[in-house]
């Protein structure tokens, strides 16, 4: 299923866009739309619950390479960010750090990119006072955008680099925000396309292979990309290249990335001298424990 096909159905049936996505899901998987909706609401509630619980907390992560970044940002008064961005960024980083300390997260779409969607969701709920039902519609639209990427490309960092994980998470979050404010599927497509284009080519280069550096902070910056792209789309800015084409391009870029930049902890920042020294120290610490 392409995004343009979803768009066509929504125009020809005049159905609300989240209903189009649920109907399409039934066609593809045979799953009852009401059950899917209920399950997605549950997932959304887990996100909000965990965002609330972990907001700005300090964490003791598995490798201790991160853990206090959400707390630092939450204690700081922003110089230039809006409250919406600030809250979204704190949540995104906190969720990344909670993930790295074996907390409960939603792999939306992956564990490494688990902070972007909750960041946007939590800011909509607490800064924009979004109702549960309105949030859910936007969350379903975001899931539909993620599903287009999953079906036509990949969500895996090992297969497509970080652009497939954080890139998709950002496209989803941007779509969610855009749909919440506009109810306009065309603008949703623009927000998703502009987001994915912004992060096109992003490599997966975790230090030591652990989901901490640069993953945690990348969640924090990505949610701001999502917000910026949503703002652009809401203002009527269009993506010259339609979302479906951008997804194909992302897939092709992912395939042409060398293996060293696809979650192997060989290239990118993982390949730097400082990263290798850090990993060496971590291993020594573990060996002395065992």
């Amino acid at each position: 299923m392409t995004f343009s096909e979803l768009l066509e159905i929504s125009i020809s049936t005049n159905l609300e866009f989240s209903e189009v996505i649920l109907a399409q899901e039934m066609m593809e998987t045979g799953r009852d739309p009401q059950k899917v909706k209920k399950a997605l609401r549950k997932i959304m509630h887990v996100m909000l619950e965990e965002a609330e619980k972990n907001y700005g907390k300090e964490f003791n992560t598995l490798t201790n390479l991160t853990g206090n970044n959400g707390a630092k940002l939450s204690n700081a008064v922003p110089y230039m960010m809006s409250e919406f961005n600030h809250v979204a960024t704190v949540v995104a980083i906190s969720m990344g750090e909670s993930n790295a300390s074996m907390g409960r997260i939603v792999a939306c779409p992956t564990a490494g990119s688990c902070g972007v969607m909750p960041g946007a969701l939590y800011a909509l709920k607490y800064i924009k006072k979004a109702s549960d039902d309105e949030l859910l519609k936007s969350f379903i639209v975001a899931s539909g955008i993620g599903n287009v990427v999953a079906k036509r490309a990949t969500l895996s960092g090992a297969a497509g680099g970080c652009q497939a994980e954080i890139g998709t998470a950002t496209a989803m979050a941007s779509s969610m925000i855009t749909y919440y404010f506009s109810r306009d599927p065309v603008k949703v497509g623009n927000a998703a396309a502009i987001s994915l284009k912004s992060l096109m080519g992003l490599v997966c280069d975790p230090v030591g292979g652990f989901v901490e550096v640069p993953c945690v902070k990348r969640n924090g910056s990505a949610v701001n990309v999502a917000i910026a792209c949503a703002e652009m789309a809401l203002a009527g800015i269009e993506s010259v290249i339609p979302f479906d084409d951008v997804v194909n391009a992302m897939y092709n870029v992912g395939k042409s990335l060398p293996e060293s930049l696809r979650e192997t902890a060989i290239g990118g920042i993982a390949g730097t001298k400082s990263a290798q020294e850090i990993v060496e120290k971590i291993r020594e610490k573990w060996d002395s424990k065992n």
Partner: protein
Amino acid sequence: MGLLEVSGPVMIGPSSSHTLGALKIARFVYKLMGIPQRVNFVLHGSFSMTYYGHGTDRALIAGVLGMKPDSFDVKDSYEIAKMYGLMYSFESGDLGDVHPNTVLIKAWKDDLYNEIEGSSIGGGAIKITKINGVECSLTGDFPAIVIVNKDKPGALKEILDCLSVNIANVYLRRINALEGIALTIIELDENVDDEVLRCLKRLDNVVELYFVKLEEGELL
């Protein structure tokens, strides 16, 4: 893959392949035989290189204790293992030409002993690749019946005659020629009822019977 797989699952971090997948492989052992008394994990490839930084060890212990992938207890599985008196050990090993994220789990419970080998193939998806040395390819998304049976003519037919549900795959191999023992793995489309299990238990050729049930809520 659908909306729920894209926007989920809810899990304990940090890694879908190294934490969630590891837990699901170990949980297969629990579903097969309950909580073992002793367990040995042989970690291969990336699992052995990075297990500590991904909590793979805690996820594996959580899995054999039967914890679900989103249980807050996963993080504290070492302490909880103590409460159950579970003895555990980890070792690195070369399991041959297998996926980089592969683990072999040896589990003991009373006079039962089972070996499960599985790979975490990405995004939290797993493949059980060997049960007691017999190669198979189970996703864990479907129920399965594992039977240690006498290797006699007609034994398989008897077993299949008990089944009233659709069979997805059957794996069968002689595991001990001397004692005439074979292992049969049957992957099913849906759970079977108690009557089927009673029918199987009644068979003289069935030595050990395990039913790996698909639990409510695991799939929609």
